[in-house]
């Protein structure tokens, strides 16, 4: 009859493999439940339920308050205009750098990447110093030079906010479109030329429709980021009582002194904000699923460049001017202010000194904040990297029932504004669940960061896992490796580069984060972003600038290291 050895008996019905897969799947569900579902549930629960059960009162109260409606209206207005202008600027420069023969492309591209690294709220700080209606340096210059009575420009306005957001968000469109243009098969355009179309017709009828999916993807990214954005409107808006929903939520909680009622009110406002964002996401889904990416090849080809001829010099000057305004001016301003002895003094060499740097470093809070930010970014990076990879593996390779739920859950925090997420985290971890109180500790910020950045690493790992053909793991199983061994020997080494870049995708934004931590920090848990923010809030503007310079320097150095590391990774 049959000879059955013990191993075969132990492996009846392939339980071994199943159990390994099952454990991973269950771990995945539990972690996502804790990190993502609980905070979201807490917001909904607190917004819709009070002592007497289900009630819409709290929500309706918020909708009845004109201040909130104004904030909602402002949020939408700013987001829509930022999207329109950001898209125009992004597409124009993408085409200029991707398809024309404009000189100095390399330098310009490098400069266009700076807004990507530069925290927008620092940009808002710089512009406020230049263009606020009372004491802005540039405004005062205009007033004295042209003998004006009133400041000609006022950055503390809706349009000011739109302007600053555009200058930090247009790279979303720029980068998407540039890469689409570069990956586009040039023969598609050449065929149109051969068929008798003029250059301008080709751009209108061939190039633009082909990159339309990239444009709409980038534009909607701007829309959603702007709807949820906290930094710029809070720096520029508070003074003129211009609120957006995220800043209104912050103000409500701040004014209530962090009381439970204030936080509940914040939760109700969050529901309002989520509704607005959800509508934007629905539009995004509609538009993106209609897009067709098939014509764009993954292979890189050399596109034919369009000669600008007579317009070359004017366009070059325009580009230089744009770069000067959006990159150089705010950076220079922050640096100059960081050296000035007191805010308001003219920017002349006699008024410069290192005293702000000395003061900042004499402040114990500074060192603490840098340390906190480093601890938070590194640990959020590592934890989210592993958790994201785990989710990606389960979704891509194990494909259990409900893997779609897993995927959506892990992507959810990405579409939820950071402010809203913070409120959920506060509601969840201030004793409401098993009496666990993390409030005022670094842990609560860490939990929020993990939820917020999880999707970053999940996306990169997922893309990389898709490239790892399942036959590679199967081959190692057939060679005698157990499931866990083949994971360790084959799959993990192959996706390691993606995991590393996933880590840095989390680490860098976490270093300059302010939206989430501003609602979560406690006396000893200020982050770098929060510390700069509160120094400025307290009026220590030159010191805030000095710390900002340090932060920017830190981010740039780290970014250079990252690009260096990720560049020479082995291709799979």
């Amino acid at each position, binding site marked *: 009859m049959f*000879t059955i050895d013990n191993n*075969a008996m132990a492996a009846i*019905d392939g339980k071994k493999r199943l159990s390994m897969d099952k454990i991973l799947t269950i771990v995945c569900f539990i972690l996502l439940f804790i990190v993502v579902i609980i905070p979201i549930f807490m917001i909904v629960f607190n917004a819709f339920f009070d002592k007497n059960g289900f009630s819409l009162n709290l929500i309706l109260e918020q909708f009845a308050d004109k201040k909130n409606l104004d904030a909602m209206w402002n949020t939408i207005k700013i987001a829509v205009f930022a999207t329109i202008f950001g898209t125009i600027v992004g597409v124009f420069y993408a085409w200029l750098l991707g398809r024309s023969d404009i000189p100095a492309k390399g330098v310009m591209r490098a400069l266009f990447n700076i807004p990507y690294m530069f925290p927008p709220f620092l940009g808002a700080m710089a512009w406020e110093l230049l263009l606020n209606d009372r004491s802005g340096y540039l405004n005062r210059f205009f007033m004295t030079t042209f003998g004006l009575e009133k400041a000609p420009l006022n950055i503390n306005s809706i349009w000011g906010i739109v302007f600053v957001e555009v200058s930090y968000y247009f790279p979303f469109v720029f980068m998407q479109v540039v890469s689409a243009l570069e990956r586009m098969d040039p023969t598609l355009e050449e065929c149109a030329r051969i068929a008798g179309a003029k250059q301008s017709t080709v751009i209108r009828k061939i190039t633009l429709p082909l990159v339309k999916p990239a444009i709409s993807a980038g534009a909607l990214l701007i829309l959603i980021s702007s709807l949820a954005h906290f930094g710029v409107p809070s720096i520029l808006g508070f003074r003129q009582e211009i609120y957006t929903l995220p800043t209104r939520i912050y103000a409500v909680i701040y004014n209530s002194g962090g009381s439970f009622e204030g936080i509940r009110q914040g939760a109700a406002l969050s529901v309002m904000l989520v509704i607005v964002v959800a509508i934007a996401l629905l539009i995004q889904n509609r538009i993106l699923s209609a897009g067709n990416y098939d014509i764009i090849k993954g292979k890189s080809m050399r596109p034919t460049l369009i000669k600008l001829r007579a317009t070359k010099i004017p366009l070059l000057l325009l580009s230089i001017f744009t770069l000067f305004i959006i990159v150089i001016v705010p950076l220079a301003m922050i640096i100059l202010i960081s050296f000035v002895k007191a805010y308001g003094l003219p920017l002349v060499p006699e008024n410069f000194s290192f005293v702000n740097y000395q003061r900042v470093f004499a402040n114990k809070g500074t060192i603490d904040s840098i340390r906190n930010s480093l601890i938070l970014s590194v640990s959020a990076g590592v934890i989210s990297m592993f958790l994201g990879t785990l989710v990606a593996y389960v979704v891509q390779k194990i494909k259990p029932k409900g893997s779609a739920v897993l995927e959506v859950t892990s992507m959810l925090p990405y579409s939820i504004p950071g402010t809203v997420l913070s409120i959920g985290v506060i509601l969840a971890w201030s004793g409401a669940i098993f009496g666990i109180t993390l409030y005022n500790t670094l842990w609560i910020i860490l939990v929020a960061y993990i939820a917020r950045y999880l999707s970053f690493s999940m996306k990169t790992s997922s893309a990389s896992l898709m490239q790892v053909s399942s*036959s590679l793991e*199967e*081959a190692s199983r*057939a060679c005698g*490796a157990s499931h866990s061994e083949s994971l360790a020997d084959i799959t993990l080494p*192959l996706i390691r580069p993606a995991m590393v870049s996933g880590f840095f995708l989390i680490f860098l934004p976490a270093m300059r984060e302010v939206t989430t931590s501003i609602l979560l920090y406690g006396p000893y848990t200020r982050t770098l972003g929060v510390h700069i923010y509160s120094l400025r809030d307290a009026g220590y503007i030159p010191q805030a600038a000095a710390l900002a310079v340090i932060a920017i320097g830190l981010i740039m150095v780290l970014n250079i290291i990252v690009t260096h590391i990720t560049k020479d990774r082995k291709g799979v």
Partner: protein
Amino acid sequence: MSNVSFSNVTAKYGKNTIFSNLSLEVKKGEIMCLVGPSGCGKTTLVRCLLGLHRPETGRIAIGDTVLFDAEKRINVPVEKRKIGIVFQDYAVWPHMTVLENVMYPLKKRKYKKEMIKDRAMHALEQVHMTKYESHLPSQLSGGQQQRVAIARALVTGAEVVVMDEPITNLDAKLREEMLLEIRMIQNNLGATILYITHDQQSALELCDRLAVMQLDGKICQVGTDEEIITNPVNRFTFEFIGNSNAIPMVVYENKPCFELETNIPAEGVDIGNENVDGKDMLVRLNDVVFDNSSPIKAEVTSRIFLGSEYNYFLNLYGKEIRLQQSMLDAKNNGIANVGEMVGVKFINPHFYNKLMNKEGK
């Protein structure tokens, strides 16, 4: 005693049945080619054998060792089955050097450290890859990666090696070489090879025996290549194994006729006792021959020189048929020119029912 045996194996993906109650025996030390059109379930069969897919019913065994038995609830995990596998996409691990790739199975099977390298080098020697031992797979051509995959499958001396379409991605010349090499390696090691392909040409070149799998997942014929070519059990096998002409038949005034523009008496066709009414006559291209004494006439519409033979397209009363003339015949009897009316004769005809719908070749 047969070496690999599938008995009554049923496999499903969800509700989709790939094959049901499939039985197949692969003899010890032979090269068995499993051929069938794309999507017929060949790869699923391999996955069942390897333990990557769990069948619904049946039993799979190698010799006396049961790998899977649905009734006895036995399912040996993949890593314990000790089957060598060469995947269609090679599945050479891109982050390991050639040598590391080949050493990996030895490490996992807990071979002695000092033996591992020697054995791996020996396996590489057999596929002529020793000088590439420290290369990464990305530095190798498709054919070379292929060899690495073969070396890796053979290195532990597995008794059974499965090759799933291993040479489809290679160019014609390399394909030829690899087939010869697989044959040589098999001679040296005496392993049982189950070779999966949709390409009947390479199957014919390589195999000891063939198993033909239909689109519905049934294995319709198992036998040597000669048996299958000369004595196909059904129309599917006949058409799958080589090119052929199909001419509709009808019985008209008690005479078997070709049902073309008009009914042409099928004179000189050996019908035997077959009732051909409403059937198709299938003839291989080289079984259509010029014979000017034949009353069946056709017009030459084109002629293509293929190096070792001529291929003709003929118009037989409105139906296009193909004819293959060997160089020897061309030399002895001359070639036919386009526009010429020629007499044709059909030898070795097979009669099968008409196809219900357009399927197969």
